[in-house]
């Protein structure tokens, strides 16, 4: 791992220290975690009592109170659980092919490490799937203390290349409560959306970090031929006359992505490559925490 990268990661980890990532949905498991869930349930720390209603879990009855007072009350306390998280990282050639260089890929790596740090701080197991030209590299979800370092080594060893498909990578996910997709959505975005919607229907929280390069937004280049890094036959001239049409088309694409992902129930955030990585991580975590939900 390069010293420079390590230094950047260090700055990022300092920046995201203290960020808490609460579960948006009720956890299905009874694993004990470090962060609070939005489900009010049994816990050792009782916050309130309420009368027993039909349908309540009899195990939550305060039997001692029932014995003393002959009144049936249930103990209410915030649930404490873990949310196994998998980060799907797009390492296709397009991630390293903005006019300004590989800033998108760099931002994606920082997001990956930052989110991993936040999740592991909360006790959540974190896994990683990196999709690149040679296939997919997987790291199973784990909650060990050195998982952040493992992920650092893994993402730093990957070189962006090819045009891998992300959608099939979502098929094999089991026992996962949270999936974070970090991609520029220039590959199989439609298929990915379908698979993600399927996950969401199963109660999995899907967070999409749509990476966009600043140079892609402003398109400062002029009098050049733009070549798609994933399809060398796609060559288009960059000219001043084409700027307006490009800006409109790209804005329409981003708007369409945002609307469709939000409509599917996913948490969607557009991340610019020159945005400070700590801020980007906070943005993603906040987007995931803004709205609550219940598991289906």
């Amino acid at each position, binding site marked *: 791992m390069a010293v420079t990268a390590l230094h950047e990661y260090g700055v990022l980890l300092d920046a995201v220290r203290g960020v808490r990532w609460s579960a948006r949905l009720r956890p299905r498991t009874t694993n004990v975690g470090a962060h609070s869930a939005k489900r009010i349930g049994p816990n050792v720390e009782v916050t309130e009592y309420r009368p027993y209603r039909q349908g309540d879990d009899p195990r939550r009855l305060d039997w001692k109170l029932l014995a003393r007072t002959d009144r049936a009350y249930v103990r209410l306390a915030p649930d404490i659980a873990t949310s196994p998280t998998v980060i799907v990282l797009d390492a296709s050639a397009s991630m390293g*092919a903005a006019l300004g260089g590989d800033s*998108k890929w760099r931002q994606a790596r920082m997001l990956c490490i930052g989110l991993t740090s936040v999740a592991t701080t909360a006790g959540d197991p974190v896994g990683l799937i990196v999709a690149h030209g040679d296939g997919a590299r997987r790291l199973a979800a784990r909650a060990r203390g050195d998982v952040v370092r493992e992920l650092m080594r893994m993402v730093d060893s990957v070189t962006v290349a090819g045009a891998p498909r992300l959608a099939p990578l979502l098929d094999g996910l089991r026992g996962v409560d949270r999936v974070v997709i970090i991609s520029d959505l220039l590959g199989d975005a439609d298929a990915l959306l379908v698979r993600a919607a399927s996950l969401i229907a199963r109660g999995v929280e899907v967070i999409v970090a749509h990476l966009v390069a600043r140079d*892609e937004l402003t398109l400062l280049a002029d009098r050049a031929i733009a070549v798609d890094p994933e399809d060398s036959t796609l060559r*288009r001239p960059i000219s001043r006359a084409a700027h307006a049409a490009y800006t409109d088309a790209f804005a329409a694409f981003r708007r369409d992505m945002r609307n469709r992902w939000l409509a599917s129930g996913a948490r969607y955030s557009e991340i610019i490559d020159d945005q400070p990585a700590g801020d980007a991580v906070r943005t993603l975590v906040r987007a995931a925490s803004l709205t609550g939900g219940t598991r289906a």
Partner: protein
Amino acid sequence: MTWLAPWALVAGAIGMLGVVAAHLLSRQRPRAVALATARFLPTGMLEATTVQRVPRDRWWMFLRLVVIALLGLGMAKPVLTGSRVTLRTVLLLDRALPIETQQRALDSLASDAVVIAYDSVATLHPSNTAKTSLARSSSLSSGLARLVRVRDSLLRGSTRLQVVIASPFAPNSLDPATRTIRALLPDSIAVRSVVLPSVTPQPRGMVTVRSTGDDPLAATALLLGDSVVAGTSIVQRGAVLLQADSTAARAGATVVWWPARTLTTAPRVRALTVQRTTWLAPFEPVLENALGNGARVIGWWEDGAAAVWLVTLDRGCLVLVGAAMPEAGDHALSLGAQAMLRTLLTFCDSGRARVYAPPVWLSPPPRTLSASDSTASLTSRLAPWLVAASLLLALCELVLRRVRHV
């Protein structure tokens, strides 16, 4: 300054124009950049050729212009001539010209010109010491051959030769070797117009007939009297040519040698043609091309065989008739015989008072020689340096372009 290969200047100028045109014509294929969002760009032309008002890459254009200019200058082989005489005139003077015409040609020459005077031989003179001299005939080949021999030495004091010929270009002054020798000279040759003096009546001389016995041709010759030929004319009837005949011919006489021969059989009537004169008589061919190389055929039998030869000597000529005729009979007294004898006696004079058109191949330089051969004795010291500077700048351009791309 003079240029040994001026065509290179033209080629260099064309090349420079080409460079400017290439920089005005902008066929641009822009640089390719990787852009993940290329799909959102509208389709369009990937390259286009446009004519611009201002040349693009002007520094590159300037560098290329300098390269081509230096290369053109180097290939043109500049020579710093300073104050040297750059042009030397060589006059090829035909001694067959009248004295007055020769003198006029000599008077028109500059002091540094040289004269190659030729008749059967050629001599080299400075223009101020050249003397006029009259010859009956001349050989242009001898003059050209002399010029070929002395050309390099004449060029040492000059950069270019101007060759001028003053000659009537009589047919007998040309021979098959003339064109070959002329091809050895790379210079163009100017032909000086020759104005012959008006023909003044020449004193008529008697036709001397040398024969033995009663010769019918002698009687015919006597009939012609002194009204036909100018100068000395001799009709020699004998078995062989005499030394005196050749001597007389060299001195300017026209000697017609008609061999006297006794016929053993009765000859048949044959036609003898010289120029436009034909004589029908009982003849028997003799000589049969047994003459030397100096003879030129001027008369033929009706079957195309040679019958009469002309040998041009210094100032006169020798006419050899290869026909024997019977001694008896009045054939020699016919009008045809008189016309034939008049033609033979005046044949030498026919080429003396006329100016003929020069051969078309004489003036232009031969195509097989390059223009630089005309100044082959000169070398350009600047040329290698100019070419080297051009190549060095071209190398610099390559390196600079490579560095820029890196």
